[in-house]
């Protein structure tokens, strides 16, 4: 009998039914662990997570969490998050009401002129930029919607040895739309 494959999470960048939670938290030690721990023990799935100091007040940070609303009802996720004492405010953005952006960085080995031409083509099509170059590689950057990043990522997969990082998305309500608290 062959042993089962080791468990690995399926990598899906754009979930089927996702919601974006913009969570204002106190800037205190362990806050991220509290959020991550809550999601883990309640079985809620996180697709991406981005953290940065909040715009107006050094006491707070803003955490943008893309959650899988299939893994648990959004009401449960928000209700449980709200119980974390360090969570100050939660706003929930439905994808249609959100302006979402993400940053992708990729270093692509370029050893021959064919590859170089194909890469330049890919970059131009995606509207990406070259931000670093040396004799054997090019670093590409794209700032765009998560699906634009998905497209570029798929295109770059055909280049051997590519090293790619994405930030996870940040989001704001589209003008004229409001998030629900």
């Amino acid at each position, binding site marked *: 009998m062959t042993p089962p494959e080791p468990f690995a999470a399926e990598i899906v960048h754009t979930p089927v039914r996702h919601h974006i939670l913009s969570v204002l*938290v*106190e800037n205190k*030690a*362990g806050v991220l*662990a*509290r959020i991550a*721990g*809550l999601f883990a*023990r309640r079985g809620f799935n996180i697709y991406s997570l981005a953290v940065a100091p909040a715009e107006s007040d050094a*006491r707070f940070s803003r955490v943008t969490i893309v959650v899988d609303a299939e893994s648990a*009802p959004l*009401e*449960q996720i928000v*209700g*449980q998050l*709200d*119980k*974390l*004492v*360090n*969570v*100050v*405010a939660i706003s929930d953005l439905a994808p249609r009401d959100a302006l979402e952006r993400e940053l992708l960085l990729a270093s692509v080995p370029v050893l021959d002129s064919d590859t170089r031409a194909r890469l330049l083509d890919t970059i131009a099509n995606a509207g990406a930029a070259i931000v670093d170059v040396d004799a054997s590689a090019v670093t590409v950057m794209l700032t765009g919607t998560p699906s634009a990043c998905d497209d570029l990522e798929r295109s770059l997969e055909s280049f051997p040895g590519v090293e790619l990082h994405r930030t996870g998305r940040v989001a704001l309500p589209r003008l004229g739309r409001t998030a629900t608290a």
Partner: protein
Amino acid sequence: MQLTGAQALIKSLEQQGVETIFGLPGGAILPVYDPLLDSPIRHILARHEQGAGHMAEGYALATGRPGVAMVTSGPGSTNIVTPIGNAHMDSTPLVVITGQVATTSIGTDAFQECDITGITMGITKHNFLVQSAQELPRAVAAAFHLATTGRPGPVLIDVPKDVSQSMMEWWYPETLEELDLPGYHPTRDLDEEAVARAVQLISRAERPVLYVGGGTLKSGASAALLAFAEATRMPVVTTLMARGAFPDSHDQHLGMPGMHGTYAAVTALQRSDLLVALGARFDDRVTGRVSAFAPGASVIHVDIDRAEFNKIRHADVTLQTDVGTALAALGDAGATPAPLDAWWREIRAWRAQYPLTYDEPVVDGPLRPQHVIEAIAQRAEPGTIVASGVGQHQMWTSQFWRFDEPRTWVNSGGAGTMGFGVPAAIGAKVGRPDRAVWCIDGDGCFQMTAQELVTARAERIPIKVAILNNAYLGMVRQWQEMFYDERYSEVYLSADLPDYVKWAEAMGCVGLRATNVKEMADVIDEANAINDVPVVIDFRTDTSEKVFPMVAAGASNDDIMVHPSQRGGAR
């Protein structure tokens, strides 16, 4: 005024009105034990940190005030993890203070270092790792505020040794703002529109039930519940966590619902057209198979924690507030169901046909455990507080003790922590020295935490412990008998090993034993006459007794198994 962090910590506890700390000292918490000598706060020296934690829980459950426990770092802190988890499951207000290695040593695997804030993140309402002595008063005040408001729960304060040893300028928070909890808003304005919709649902109901949970006791809403129930004539069921919230002697009370609930309570929920859930959370031990639970019922869900809404069961109306406030609002709004005569006729028939029962006692023994509980209850002075461990004896106590007053039932519900009974009874007696306190325990549970009777004797806390000694891990045995073809795996304990009477005597308690009905009555009277030292009674009970009614795990509540003597024609 300059104080050490340790002095500031003790003084902060005094500011909070703390009268008693249950604890056990050790290296990292040593500095805090010194100013304790100069404080009016009573310290109860437990023999194991788990005991200290359960004592604090028993104190909180019996008094409604937060229990306080204090232990050292490392193993001291991990030993109290079980009580913290237990308090979290049962929403018991607890403040636990743990020593920690010095801030300069944190992260170096220092002696008795342990990341207790990390370990308890998922089982506390909140926890603090205090970084400076100046912050201690705020941490203490915030911990008590968090533990006791909203949905109560355990809060842990981790105090590094250098923090308790360094100097601070004394201050104490005087306003909620100074607690610096910008994300904590436990109360909300009552949703009047939801109240109106609830009133409408109630007015249309023909088969309503008041499904009363532990939140009703936490809210101190027993009087409001009695008034509302009597005004509306709705039947009442009280969950394991709510026993005592509504008098068992009241005609509208159907008893406990759930896996070992009464036939009338279980069936009334199943057939109801409206559940008014009052501080209850649709626990799996109440609902049985969720998809088959109360299939025809609309739900009005009252809870102070909005995360309970629609978690297990869809609610048609939600009221995020405490039970007392909700009942007052519903009462003021004139919520009245249709005449319930037909509904009551059905319920009365169930009650008459399937009362709680057990087999006739055998005069020469072995004793029927249910008979022992009834005998103790009959001879107990009014207002007696009863604690229990977890298992068959707990279910029988919940079934056969008559609870007529809030905060007289001290037990471990959500977590199901064996060994809870003895230390919790000690804590309850400390909190309510004016009350008699019995612990109805099992032999398996007793062996887990019995050493705290040394604490009880040393601290002059005269509780009474009834061991229903059936020589087995009885509840597990019951499942193996019923669901595993009587294949008994690792459940036999022996009735004679240990010798409970000698063990009790070695711990400075009075040890008694009863093997038949005559001795049973005598030893209970003897125990009731002793008021200066703890008493332990070894009741030799029938090994084969099982808890009925029973709904098998994962089964529908429609498939309730009544006592064998009641089976026959109908179900």
